[in-house]
Each structure stands twice: as structure tokens, then as C-alpha cells.
């Protein structure tokens, strides 16, 4: 078995993937930095246990999902996302600037926001990272049928949101 990858190299090569994933999972504003820090802290700790025969991204996705989910749950509890303006901290990069904005991307992020976090995770892993559903189920540690039903719900909600957004566009 080959040795586990060096953390520093992994950090360099996968930082972009992790932060983009976090953004798509609904983490935004200054939280991206905090959540990315926590994700890599866990990755560091568990790296020696990583099975190098397996691809790294689904493994990282599992950490990103679980930490983002708890972070969002806590933020919701505090009504932080609804009440506090984003990006107020001095010097912190604006996480919503992490991606070069376009109208289509803005709409896509709005549509993603209509999904529950667990549906969203399956949707992103499958539709964007192109992981087969059995791999998604494994990365998220959920039963296969659950993964399929979340994907079904996610697609339906995403499509409904997309339809609404297109309709709004036409009435402008």
C-alpha cells in the first residue's frame, strides 16, 4: 500500500475543491474560512488512516459535508444567516467572491439554496463531482436507497427553482 499523501501537498492541491464544495453546500461569507479550517483539521487528523487505494475527493467530501451541515444547523439556530450581514470581518476574504460571479451562477446558487443540506450534498456529489450514487452513499455514510431518494427530491426541487427563475426572467 502506498503511503498516505502528505498533508501539505493535499492541502495545496485540494483547497480549491474543498472551498468550492463548501460554497455549494451553502457555507458562505466569512464562515468559509472557519469551516475550511475545521475540515482540514479533521483531514489532518485522519490522513494516516486514509486508504490510498481509494480516490481522495469523496473522502474529503464526507468531511466537508458533515462539518458544513453542523455549521449551517448552528447558524440557522442563531438566525445568523438571516439577520447578519455577510463579510463584515476586516481582512477576511469575501467568500462569495470566491467564485467569479455571473447571473447564471447566482441563479444556480439560489436554486441550490432551496434544497435541504442532505439533499444538496447528494446532488452536488453526483451532478457536479460526477460520483456514482453508490460512491455518494458511501462518502456520506448513508444507505443507498436514501441517497437515491435524496437525489430524486433534490433534482425535483432544483428543477422547480430553475423553472421559477426562468419564469421571473421572462416577466422582467
Amino acid at each position, binding site marked *: 500500500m502506498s503511503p498516505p499523501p502528505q498533508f501539505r501537498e493535499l492541502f495545496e492541491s485540494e483547497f480549491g475543491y474543498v472551498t468550492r464544495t463548501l460554497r455549494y453546500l451553502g457555507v458562505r461569507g466569512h464562515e468559509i474560512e472557519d469551516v475550511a479550517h475545521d475540515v482540514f483539521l479533521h483531514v489532518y487528523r485522519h490522513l494516516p488512516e486514509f486508504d490510498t487505494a481509494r480516490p481522495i475527493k469523496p473522502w474529503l467530501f464526507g468531511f466537508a459535508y458533515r462539518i458544513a451541515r*453542523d455549521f449551517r444547523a448552528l447558524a440557522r439556530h442563531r438566525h445568523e444567516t438571516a439577520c447578519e450581514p455577510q463579510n463584515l470581518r476586516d481582512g477576511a476574504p469575501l467568500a462569495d467572491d470566491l467564485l467569479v460571479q455571473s447571473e447564471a451562477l447566482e441563479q444556480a446558487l439560489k436554486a441550490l439554496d432551496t434544497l435541504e443540506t442532505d439533499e444538496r450534498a447528494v446532488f452536488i456529489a453526483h451532478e457536479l463531482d460526477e460520483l456514482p450514487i453508490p460512491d455518494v452513499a458511501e462518502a456520506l455514510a448513508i444507505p443507498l436507497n436514501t441517497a437515491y431518494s435524496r437525489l430524486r427530491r433534490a433534482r425535483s426541487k432544483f428543477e422547480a427553482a430553475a423553472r421559477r427563475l426562468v419564469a421571473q426572467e421572462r416577466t422582467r
Partner: protein
Amino acid sequence: MNNQPQPNSAALLSALREAQVNSAVEGTLKMRVHSRLSVSILGLTPALSASIPAASNALVASRTSGISGAKGFAVSKGTLIAWLAPVFALGVLTGVAVDRWHPYSAVKALPHSTAPAAQRDAPLSPQPELPLEAISPSDLEQIDAPGAAASPSLAVSAPAASDANTSLAIERRLLDEARQALARGEPQAGLGPLDRHAKRFPKGVLTEEREALAVRMLAALGQSDAATARAENFHRRFPNSLFTPAVDNAIATISRRNVAGESKL
């Protein structure tokens, strides 16, 4: 089921797939996270070290576990760490104290594959908000204790005995012992475990972490020459280390202390 996204979704999905990263923002973000990790990994308390959940084998946490009984939770702990980061960069404080605030301190390590599915549930839960000086490692152990958990789903078993005896677990214990000594303000007591680690695991998985800790330990002891020599050796051995900022910071702290001492003369 329908295997393809429906028509209205397609354009939005393409936008997500093709989204370009703003590289300047990503670069800044990366630097900040790296700098914080460098300090916080070396400052992990043993309680936190034991608390990081098993990776992808763990079942998804129950939805209630993260927020049940959540009155008074300190959502801003991560924010606080970030706010303190520049202070650490100045070397005014150590990373040890800050990591007692880590949001996931109340999580138990879990066996990977031996536990039943429900037990492999690995909630990441926040700890109650407490003033910095009021938290000690023993407090964290109490928070970790199943009886103190806000939700029954936190009541998970300790790591299996076999896990506790792997080389990696032994390596971690030795480094945790050293960290704990540093956290108590007894760096002298931390040198022993580091030496034992060096003898037993000269090429251990945590060698890089040990060497970075040793520099901090020697710096805390005021052993300027030894710390500098070890730091130089560290930089030679690990030129691209995650811990470079923390090592440099420890050396800078000694230099500042020396300058301050001279100016008093």
C-alpha cells in the same frame, strides 16, 4: 427514475460546473487557513485529539444532535479563533489556549467499523460557551462524557481497545502528553514524551509534528540556542511544512523576548 437533470436545470448546472474561482481571493483564504492550521494543530488539547470523529465510515449524525439543548452555544467560536489569529501571528499567545474553543470538542472518537451503525453516528457538536480561562482539559473531558451530553446520540463508546494500541494511537498519546504539559505551562515536562516519541518512532507518522512541538517547547523554556538549532533542522527536513509558520513564530517570540530583556538593561 429519470437519470438526467431536467431542462430548466441544465443551464444552471453548467454554471455551477464551470464556475471560475477568483484566484486572488482563494490565495488569501488559503494563506489564512494554513496559518491558523499551523497553530491549531500544534495546540490541540488531548480532549480534542480524541474527539475528532471517524471519517467516512461514520453514519450521518442525527439531525437533532448538533443543536439539541443548544441554548447558549457559542456559534462564534470559529469566528473568535479567526479573530485571534493575527494575535497569534504576533506570538502574543500560544495556540494551546485557543483550541480549547474548538467547536467540535464535544465529539468522541468512534471506532471505524466495529460499532453498530447507530453508534457509528458521528455528530459534530458544539460545546457550551464558557469563558476562555474557565475551560481546562478536565472540563473538556466532562463535556466529552456521555452523561454530560445534550443529546443521547452523543453517548457513544470510547475507541476500541485495538485502536488505542496502534502505533499511531501511541504516537498521538505521546504528543498529546507533551501538548498537555505545554498547555499547563510546564514545557519541561513535555520534553520527556517528545524524547520517548523520537526514540520509539524515529520515522513515525507524526515526526514532523513532534519536531515542530519540540521547537515550541524549547522556545517556551527560553532555550534559545537549542530552539534555533532545532528550528533550522526542522526547516531542512521539512522545507514545505504546514508547521513552518508556527515554528517561525516560536523563534520570533524568543527574539522579541531577548530584545525586550536587553532594552530593560
